[in-house]
């Protein structure tokens, strides 16, 4: 759809070895003011390691937008725009449309510029969903990256439609009558897949190479692509800051957050999840994932343990469904 001359990534870049990733200068810079142990901060650093040339980033309002742009300081080494909360995808639409027409008119250099829209779960699942749906329907060439920390952490840990069942937040507190959030997490990737996108994937920062590779694949799509990145928030989850990456691993190992990619709707498990599908004995109980997190602490009281069982059952059911989806589309 675009008439651009894209810089082809060199083979060396594409490998994304540990050495390559570390050697590439950060584009999300040190000195940002995210909390100690912030999962999304690692996610943003890694995302930017996958860029392949000139890139413009736009970001929805949220904790990661704030921590990287407290005037007069910026943590963004590339052109970056924030306008509001619900409109990251509309920003990307405007940027992409402007680049396209100005390139055509010779007002800017004839080079491809990647556009990345970043938003948290609030700016994606909830307030940003309409703009996202509109932008991908129109087919703008951009990569939308959701960093999902499962709640409104910037405003002090309120529930979003991404907050998992059972989690205690300040607007779904665990009380004597109500044991935390009662509703399921919204299946955002299914919604994006239903838009018939060329590339939809999930990732977590623990599996960093998988994450960086998926960002690059999303950028290479000519048209919209969607990446859902699981990003533990020690502040909001009441978890140990040192265990942020461990939770992003446990989420995969327990199949709470399996990682996969769908190219033109064909869904395939990514290696860490594929390993579990091949060796089901490696699948960890959700209890292992839940128990260290303060937001789920109340579930381990005797009167609530049935909820842990329910979460296990629901997780198993979703996992089985995903396996079927992968097999069905991938005979």
């Amino acid at each position, binding site marked *: 759809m675009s008439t651009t001359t894209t810089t082809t990534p060199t083979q060396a870049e594409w490998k994304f070895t540990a050495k390559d990733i570390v050697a590439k200068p950060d584009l999300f810079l040190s000195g940002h003011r995210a909390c100690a142990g912030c999962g999304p901060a690692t996610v943003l650093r890694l995302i930017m390691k996958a860029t392949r040339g*000139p*890139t*413009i980033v*736009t970001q929805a309002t949220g904790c990661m*937008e*704030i921590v990287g*742009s*407290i*005037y*007069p*300081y*910026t943590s*963004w*080494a*590339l*052109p*970056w*725009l*924030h*306008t*509001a909360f*619900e*409109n990251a*995808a*509309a*920003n*990307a*639409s*405007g*940027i992409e*449309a*402007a*680049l*396209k*027409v*100005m390139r*055509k*008119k010779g*007002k*800017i*250099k004839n080079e491809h*510029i990647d556009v990345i829209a970043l938003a948290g779960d609030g700016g994606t699942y909830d307030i940003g969903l*309409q*703009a996202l*749906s*509109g*932008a991908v*329907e*129109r087919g703008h060439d951009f990569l939308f990256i959701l960093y999902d920390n499962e709640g409104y952490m910037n405003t002090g840990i309120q529930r979003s439609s991404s907050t998992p069942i059972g989690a205690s937040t300040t607007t779904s507190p665990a009380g004597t009558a109500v044991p935390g959030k009662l509703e399921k997490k919204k299946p955002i990737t299914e919604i994006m897949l239903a838009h018939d996108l060329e590339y939809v994937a999930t990732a977590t920062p623990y599996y960093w190479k998988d994450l960086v590779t998926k960002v690059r694949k999303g950028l290479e799509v000519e048209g919209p692509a969607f990446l859902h990145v699981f990003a533990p928030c020690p502040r909001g989850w009441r978890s140990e800051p040192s265990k942020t990456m461990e939770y992003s691993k446990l989420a995969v190992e327990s199949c709470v957050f399996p990682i996969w990619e769908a190219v033109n709707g064909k869904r395939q498990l990514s290696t860490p999840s594929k390993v579990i599908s091949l060796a089901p004995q490696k699948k960890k109980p959700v209890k292992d994932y839940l128990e260290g997190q303060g937001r789920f602490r109340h579930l381990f009281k005797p009167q609530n343990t049935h909820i842990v069982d329910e979460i296990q059952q629901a997780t198993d059911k979703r996992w089985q469904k995903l396996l079927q989806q992968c097999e069905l589309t991938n005979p």
Partner: protein
Amino acid sequence: MTQPQQQEQPKQKIVAMNGDEAIAYAVKQCDVDVVAAYPITPQTIIVEKFSEYVANGEVQTEYVCTESEHSAITACLAAGATGARTFTASASAGLALMHEILFVTAGARIPVVLAVANRALSSPINIHGDHSDSMAERDSGWIHIYAENAQEAYDSIIQAFKIAEDPTVSLPIFIGVDGFTISHTLERVDTLTDEVVQTFVGQRQYPTVTTHEGKTVPFKLDPANPMTMGPIALQNYYYEFKRQQEEAMKNAYKKIQQIHNEYAQISGRSYGNGLIDTYKLDDAEIAITVIGSTAGTLKDIVDQLRDEGIKAGILRIRTFRPFPAEEIQKALQNIKAVAVMDKSMSPGGLGSTLFSEIRNALYDQKQHPIIVNYIFGLGGRDSSPQDFRKIYADLCQIAKTGQAEKTITYFGLRE
């Protein structure tokens, strides 16, 4: 499609267009890069007409059919931040949905041009013309200009790009036209050639900024010169940026007049000084102050009254932001009684918006007229020219007695 003009006074093509079509035509001539819009009555003709230009390859514009007005103004803001010339149009509920981003656009200093086909706000829902929608955006930081007819709508759009994109201004601007009265009414519009318009408007200009890399560069998103746009500024700096916006408005005050006068040179058309437009006001004893198409209707009444020996006049506010307080003070200094006609309402307020502003502007004057407020035309409520005579009759009485019986009149309302 058009002939290059050799003459000093370029020939103009006379076209029958309604206000919306005139706006779309002007936008086409201004070589806009990105139009992002969402349909809403009575603005829709603008985007329909512009879509035709796109479909027929008559413009080199990226037209983004967004899923809401919120995304339309956002896309314009972002495209403008990327360096593009941008345009959108809206009305009523659409403008209200843009509300949040109108403030962001002004604070972000992106020169988006917006046409507002003024329409009532819900509830009850009503598609007809009044000024409730744009008056609710008074403090959004946009430049507000209102046209009197389709011709002025055409002329004002062309001026708007040049005003908004002036590096000393760099503010968004809207051109208001009365819903249906202007937007849908076929009129004669004299149009300039594409070449004349493009030479007048020129390429988009950029102010310069100094980035975190210490480079002083044009204000736009450019991978060669990375900059951070739209950060959070807290107690220590937010206020300073608001003060900068005020300064930009002061610059706009000068630029609106200057660009209006330059445009008069190439078109032969002017509207007062670009800020206010008066009719038989110099020796007037009574006057009506109003915004938009109503001024046209009032001219006939004033002519009749003049024939009858009554010294009546009109002050039309063309530019509402920046507010031309000094011009208004001068224009009204010798008037005995003034009626401010507001096509919007501020429930619970002391009169409506324009009235409050005009009265405020005259407070410091040693000598000022008696000022009364007529709220009229809400939801498109029509008044005949003869009805408006009643207002002048009231003013004659006020001027004679030196006092007004009441300050606020709900004109045309069944009491």
